[in-house]
């Protein structure tokens, strides 16, 4: 069976019916199988599907490969918890204001984890090829750079019409994708505000999708603005309502990043990064009895402040 036939077979076997797919974070974490390649939605500190990462780390999942356009501080947590030992991305650190991630450095320099580096456009086109049911897409970047030589599966090719040299990047069809949006119905029809990032392609490319959402809205609400739907229900396998599901990252129009929490995190890792991140995981990932307990530990004042800043985006 060819890779394409296998992809089609998996897609055919999924339930395409217009049915409710609502479940808990814990149930959704149970959809992840050993060895799954996980795709993450959002970018850097925006619409990061942190609640699902949180649930998966708590469930004790280990050794996954994770693909994301641009990674951020969640990368530290996936490395340090053992959830991930191989990241496919274009960039990984915490963010301009907090310096280069020590955890990223330690894990990759000591070869405890692989950091497979593609250009951002290449990442986007790999998901897009996957979304289109194609084995590859051509592009014009990455040529001449040293990125090419370190990648296991990239090729140069000639254009069949012009003979030009192009780069072919292979489709990336994650086994499962986690995506967080502002609103989604019980069937999985998702609408998002602000930057769409790579999420629509990621959802279409993946073989399973868990959609976490700030709130579940009715299918009637979706149908009132069908041209704002970005991801259709039949690509979605689980819908989980998780208010503040990206905290302490951002969800456009709902909350900005919890900046002082990021300062706190960076401080905690300053002296001994590995000890700091272990302490952080203990306090925020393993100890909380549930997601609301986690949010409570982030702090009500932080949460209110982030929400005030978040909703201010539409102020004139």
């Amino acid at each position: 069976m060819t890779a394409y036939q296998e992809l089609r077979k998996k897609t055919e076997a999924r339930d395409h019916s217009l049915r409710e797919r609502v479940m808990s974070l814990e149930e959704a974490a149970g959809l992840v199988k050993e060895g799954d390649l996980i795709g993450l939605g959002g970018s850097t500190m925006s619409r990061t599907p942190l609640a699902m990462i949180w649930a998966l780390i708590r469930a004790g999942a280990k050794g996954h490969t994770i693909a994301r356009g641009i990674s951020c501080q969640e990368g530290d947590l996936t490395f340090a918890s053992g959830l991930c030992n191989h990241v496919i991305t274009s960039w990984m650190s915490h963010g301009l204001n907090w310096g280069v991630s020590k955890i990223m450095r330690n894990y990759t320099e000591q070869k405890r984890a692989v950091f497979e580096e593609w250009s951002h456009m290449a990442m986007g086109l790999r998901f897009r090829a996957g979304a289109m049911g194609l084995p590859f897409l051509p592009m014009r970047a990455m040529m001449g750079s040293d990125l090419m030589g370190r990648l296991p599966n990239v090729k140069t090719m000639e254009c069949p019409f012009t003979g030009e040299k192009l780069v072919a990047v292979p489709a990336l069809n994650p086994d499962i994708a986690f995506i967080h949006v502002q609103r989604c119905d019980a069937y999985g029809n998702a609408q998002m505000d602000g930057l769409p990032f790579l999420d629509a392609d990621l959802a279409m490319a993946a073989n399973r999708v868990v959609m976490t959402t700030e709130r579940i809205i009715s299918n009637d609400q979706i149908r009132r603005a069908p041209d704002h739907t970005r991801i259709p229900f039949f690509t979605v396998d689980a819908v989980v309502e998780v208010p503040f599901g990206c905290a302490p990252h951002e969800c456009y129009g709902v909350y900005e990043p919890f900046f002082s929490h990021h300062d706190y995190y960076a401080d905690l890792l300053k002296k001994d990064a590995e000890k700091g991140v272990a302490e952080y995981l203990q306090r925020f990932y393993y100890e909380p009895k549930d997601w609301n307990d986690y949010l409570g530990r982030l702090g009500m004042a932080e949460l209110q402040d982030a929400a005030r800043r978040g909703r201010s985006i539409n102020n004139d």
Partner: protein
Amino acid sequence: MTERRNYTAAEVLAVMSSRLLKDGQIVFAGVGLPLLAAILAQRTHAPTLTILFEGGTIGAFVEPGQLPPSTNEQRCCRRANMLLPSTDVLLLLQRGYVDIGFMGGAQIDKHGNLNSSFIGDAENPTARLPGTGGGNDIASLTNMIVAMKHEKRRFVEKVDFVTSPGFLDGGRSREKAGLDLGGLFRVVTDLAILGFDEKSRDMKVVALHPGVTAKEIQDNTGFELIIERNVETTPPPTEDELKVLRHLDPDRLYIA
């Protein structure tokens, strides 16, 4: 060098790079200093310039004092003309709608190649850096300006790793690698504006900032620069430029 003056090195960098941007251009800007310089240009000599961000934004108004932590957060989206998937905003580079790519750099070499991946040998690096992001795409597909601090350890004969291609090995090696178009147009530092010799593609000084000598810049560079005898001097930052800049970054996140 700027001790006796009423502006910082970072402010010189921001002002001098903003002046390279022309009115009406589409500028693909990185976060931090490039963003700041592009807004400065927009608010001074280039009112119809449009800023693109890698996250997917076309023509936003970033609020003074609310500079974004990356180009992917809502602070980059305020009152934008359009928000696109990141892949599609990067494809604008490939299609040719971007006039200038404008980013910072960690390490650069004589031919304008940039490294943001590895210090030392890539197999056993001294330091793993955060990686390319869209840097490689920008450097491969459009004309680019890089803004960075002028330090000897950052200006090296040959980068440890070519993350974002400049002129590769110089001469016509960039074109030979398949990169038909674009290329590093200017490097702006706190000491000078630099360009590349048309033929050899070796870095050369285009203009020195006020008070900077040829010796000073060569001493701060890890390879031999082309410096013509009568090299120009840039006019110093104006009061107006500095005022706008400080209004944009009141917390002095990037201009300190």
